[in-house]
């Protein structure tokens, strides 16, 4: 406990940061204060920052930027030689350090062999970017969902807008959407960092978080079900399930009066829209009808 006393004026900061556990905090403050702190920490999760369209502001700024004067340089042989050298080195630079980007479309899956021989299988409507050549560490960016089979070697990190996943040679699945993040470990061990929390997952363990709650559970399949044409969910907000239906089948879903925060557990078939709609909406007691390319939902 000594290390806590020495930092008497920061222990709440360290508790917010999960450096100090709830049990340790309990010893430092009264029960009443402890309960209040926990409630405040939880309540804060529901607050949102202001919305912002940064593109519009950028257009405004671009218009107001003063023009730069162009310097005129007289060409001589020295500059020409220098230019050729720069061209040569930038081609080298381009080949080695520039990013490769791969995007999948609706209902498309794609296997990507990374430059160290690791494999990434991208699910539909997903995006991955990685340097042509890795140097010190293996690192890539993912939007959407992918299953990774990682070769043994230096640490391998998948960065997403929701958090990062780090491993040393293993197989795992990452699904990162707006307000939804899930990681499943199929082999070996992975480390997930989200916000300020670090979570370790070993084989057969899964983790998921959305705006509302965080879950951990154990599963049995050897590979993600979406590889075999099935998408499955475990207590996932219906809004996320609907988003997945939309990207899988390239349809619009009009949510009507249904509650998109109710939780869904189950799976749908990736190849047949009718069967998929049935398997999601019948158990949730939601009526649906299809018109053109739009599915309209209504509470029963």
């Amino acid at each position, binding site marked *: 406990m000594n290390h806590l006393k020495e*930092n008497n*004026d*920061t*222990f*709440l*900061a*360290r508790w*917010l*940061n999960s450096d100090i556990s709830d049990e340790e905090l309990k010893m430092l403050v009264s029960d009443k*204060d402890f*309960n*209040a*702190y926990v*409630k*405040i920490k939880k*309540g*804060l999760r*529901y*607050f*949102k*920052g*202001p919305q*912002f369209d*940064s593109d519009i*502001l*950028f257009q*405004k*700024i671009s218009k*107001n*930027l*003063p023009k*730069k004067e162009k310097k005129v340089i007289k060409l001589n042989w020295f500059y020409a030689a220098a230019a050729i050298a720069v061209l040569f080195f930038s081609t080298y630079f381009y080949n080695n350090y520039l990013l490769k980007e791969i995007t999948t479309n609706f209902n498309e899956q794609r296997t990507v062999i990374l430059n160290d021989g690791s494999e990434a299988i991208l699910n539909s409507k997903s995006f991955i970017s990685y340097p042509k050549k890795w140097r010190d560490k293996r690192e890539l960016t993912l939007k959407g969902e992918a299953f990774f089979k990682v070769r043994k070697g230096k640490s391998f990190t998948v960065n997403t807008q929701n958090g990062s996943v780090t491993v040393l040679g293993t197989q795992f699945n990452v699904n990162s959407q707006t307000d939804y993040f899930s990681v499943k470990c199929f082999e070996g061990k992975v480390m997930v960092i989200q*916000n*300020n929390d670090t979570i370790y997952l070993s084989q057969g363990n899964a983790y998921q978080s959305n*705006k*509302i*709650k965080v879950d951990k559970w154990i599963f049995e399949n050897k590979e993600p079900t979406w590889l075999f044409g099935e998408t499955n969910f475990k207590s996932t907000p219906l809004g996320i399930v609907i988003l997945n239906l939309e990207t899988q089948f390239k349809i619009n879903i009009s949510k009507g009066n249904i*509650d998109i*925060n*109710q*939780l869904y557990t189950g799976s749908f078939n990736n190849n047949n829209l009718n069967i998929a709609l049935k398997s999601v909406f019948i158990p949730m007691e939601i009526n649906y009808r299809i018109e053109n390319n739009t599915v309209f939902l209504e509470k029963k």
Partner: protein
Amino acid sequence: MINRSVCESEVFSAIYKNNANDLRNYLYYKFGDLETAEDLVQESFIKLWKNCVKVIFQKAKSYLFTVATNMFIDKKRHEKVVLNYQKQNKNHIDNQSPEFLFEEKEFMKKLQFTLGNLPDKQREVFLLNRIDNKTYKEISEMLNISVKAVEKRMHNALKIVRKEIGNV
């Protein structure tokens, strides 16, 4: 990107993409006024462009935050920070009583009010961490203060919130 000049429009727009949101939220948490925050973001980036020869890529971020903060000193704060919050999910198995729901609603309202009333220095740090998920280290770099100072402000902010909110 690291060795390239801020004067290149591609580099400049990458710096914008990476920092505009953080800078604007920071100014809002400090200021309480969205319009002024966006104006200051605009002015800071124009200033960065004008001085792009002098500012190296790695220093662009701290330059932006410093410039914006200095410009801010000239302006007066005139509004309270009011953050929106979403309703908590009431779809759990246990049936919560109307009294409970009412108390919960009152609590969130109080919390919203208290956040707006925090002293400026505590509020900006507290909201950057809790709402924008910035780490203490990131905040210390943005504000050009030590991590320890960030921790002290976080600690005091939570203490004040707890005091203001009373019995829960």
